[in-house]
């Protein structure tokens, strides 16, 4: 049976069950009410932390200890502080400068660059590992895997020293530069991503490359025109994960970025709760809330790419 016929048959079968189910709906729903209750409970469970952070963001009370889930006094002050870049200090102290929007921009730049470059570099490496046979291929793959064994925390000291000394010669990738941090991030996750992408590329039939080559494509054209479009799902996943990873990353960003103007959101927001500006949980929560939309939007946007079966119909199934 050809795939098309198979699809038609299964579609017909699916249609059949659907009409049957529709006819029986009242009884079926009667039996599954508990599933809906369970689903609602799970959703509440999942939304609980978000409810808390939202509450804290709108709460005029900056401490968490005495806060209630429904704020006693609702205020937009926390958001205003962030946008205006100034948080009032304790009574008598001058206001503290917080370049929140700068941090926001830094984070987006670093996350976007890291995500795009990770996908690009990872895909290039994975394509080579998947399609070419060369000396050191096995060794390279193994090395990538082995290096990933060590958590990046172990490397913090080494990374710091490397960036410090490199920066002494090439200022634009030294400490306190976004480019330096991006480079560190790119190296950090390369291994896993290359393996993931290689695994996906391996499932794309080699005949597609060969066919394109006979049609007159260079390896680069095969890569851009055939492999990358087909690998869209895995590229989307990896891009998304590196974006999120960078937005969340704290340790390396804290080590490498030491001037307030260069901070990322994670590093900058930390300042609200490490007692430096006294504990401003409310402002912190507002900052966190504002940081969420880009990630959520990216997720929704990439969702349609993260579907399997894109290679369907390439070869006889």
């Amino acid at each position, binding site marked *: 049976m*050809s*795939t*098309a*016929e198979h699809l038609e048959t299964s579609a017909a079968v699916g249609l059949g069950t659907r009409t049957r189910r529709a006819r029986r709906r009242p009884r079926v729903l009667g039996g599954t009410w508990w599933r809906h209750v369970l689903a609602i409970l799970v959703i509440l469970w999942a939304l609980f932390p978000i409810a808390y952070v939202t509450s804290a963001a709108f709460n005029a009370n900056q401490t968490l200890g005495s806060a209630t889930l429904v704020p006693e006094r609702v205020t937009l002050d926390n958001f205003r502080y962030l946008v205006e870049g100034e948080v009032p200090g304790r009574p008598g102290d001058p206001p503290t400068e917080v370049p929140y929007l700068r941090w926001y921009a830094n984070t987006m730049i670093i996350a976007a660059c890291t995500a795009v470059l990770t996908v690009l570099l990872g895909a290039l490496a994975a394509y080579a590992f998947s399609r070419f*046979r060369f000396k050191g291929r096995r060794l390279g793959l193994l090395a990538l895997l082995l290096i990933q064994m060590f958590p990046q925390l172990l490397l913090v000291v080494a990374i710091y020293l490397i960036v410090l000394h490199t920066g002494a010669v090439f200022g634009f990738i030294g400490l306190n530069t976004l480019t330096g941090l991006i480079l560190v991030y790119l190296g950090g996750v390369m291994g896993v991503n290359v393996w993931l992408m290689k695994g996906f590329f391996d499932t794309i*039939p080699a*005949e*597609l490359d*060969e*066919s*394109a*080559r*006979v*049609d*007159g*494509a*260079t390896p680069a*054209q095969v890569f851009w*025109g*055939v492999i990358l*479009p*087909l690998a869209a799902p895995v590229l989307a996943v990896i891009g998304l994960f590196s974006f999120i990873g960078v937005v969340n990353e704290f340790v390396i960003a804290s080590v490498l970025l030491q001037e307030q103007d260069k901070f990322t959101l994670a590093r900058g927001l930390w300042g609200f709760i490490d007692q430096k500006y006294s504990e401003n949980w409310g402002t912190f929560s507002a900052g966190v809330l504002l940081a969420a939309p880009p990630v959520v939007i990216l997720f929704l946007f990439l969702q349609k790419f993260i579907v399997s079966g*894109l*290679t*369907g*119909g*390439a*070869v*006889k199934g």
Partner: protein
Amino acid sequence: MADVVFDGVDKVFPNGVQAVYELSLDVHDGEFLVLVGPSGCGKTTALRMVAGLEEITDGTLTIGGRVVNDLSPKERDVAMVFQNYALYPHLTVADNIAFGLRLRRESKSVIEERVHWAAKMLDLSPYLARRPKELSGGQRQRVAMGRAIVRKPQAFLMDEPLSNLDAKLRVQMRADIAKLQRDLETTTIYVTHDQVEAMTMGDRVAVMNQGRLQQVDTPQRLYDNPANLFVAGFIGTPPMNLLAASVASQNGSVSVQVGEQAVPLSDEAMRRFPAVRGREGREVVLGVRADDLHRADRRPDLPAVNANLELIEALGSQSIAYFRIDAMVIGVDEDLIDEREADGEGVTAARPNLVSAMSAEDAVGLRTGERVPVAIDTKHIHLFDAETGAPLR
């Protein structure tokens, strides 16, 4: 359009396996040449060397008089159709067909014109906007063909393009492809393991086995005059019956001894296989096509042997009768020498070893389990040297 010439081409894979030995083959301009052989015989490797997907270890390969050994696939200007079609799933049918033209930076109007021409040739016009996954197997196959013809390349290379289709569609596409090739007059090398496809489609057929070219000739000549045991056993449906026999002579007339039974050779057979004379007592292989075995009572003029009827398959107009005769079968897939040493492997008489294709009418009254005299039309038999597999011409 161009001729494709293999001259002493070898292929050794990096792991040391040699897939093709000293292949010399001249595919004429505009010819439809079929490369046929069992799996692993090196036919696909040979095709991929023409496409530029495999490096040539030794020898030279020329396309249109140009040595292409070190040219990239792109520079060879050939088109290949893959067994699994290898369509680009993210592109529409039109874009799939236009892919090669786009890479060659043809103008938009040329691309459009050529794509429509190809789609028309292949009845694909209504499907141009679809994606491959929305097509049936036969349609996908035609898209793969379209991608090949649209570029008007020097040669078409086809790697078992029909083997993923069901039997009925395969027969139809077989005719379609053969006709298309004749219309376009493009040199075509077509790889298949199906000898029926080879016989029906090819202007000439090249039979390969274990990396070596066995014989190249027109389908009829391959059938009538196989160059060795392998070709004899490979070409033809049902396959030729190959029985171990020995040569005997009495009063100047020569016969072959099959088991305990003697088959006297006709003058015609002696003329075709003169080398059989003087081989008295030596082992030979007797080859008889299924069509040349008859019921002895219908052909009293022919010498007959007795055999047990094991099975009859009625195909409608024709019936295939499977007999068991007391003689060793010669398998052709393995090396002949090994075969004889292994003794019993594929040399068994436990299975039917004599197959006859007779008219349905003749099969009436035959009952399985009975011992039946089977007449052999010795005019058309084949005799091979048991050791070398060469015909005793």
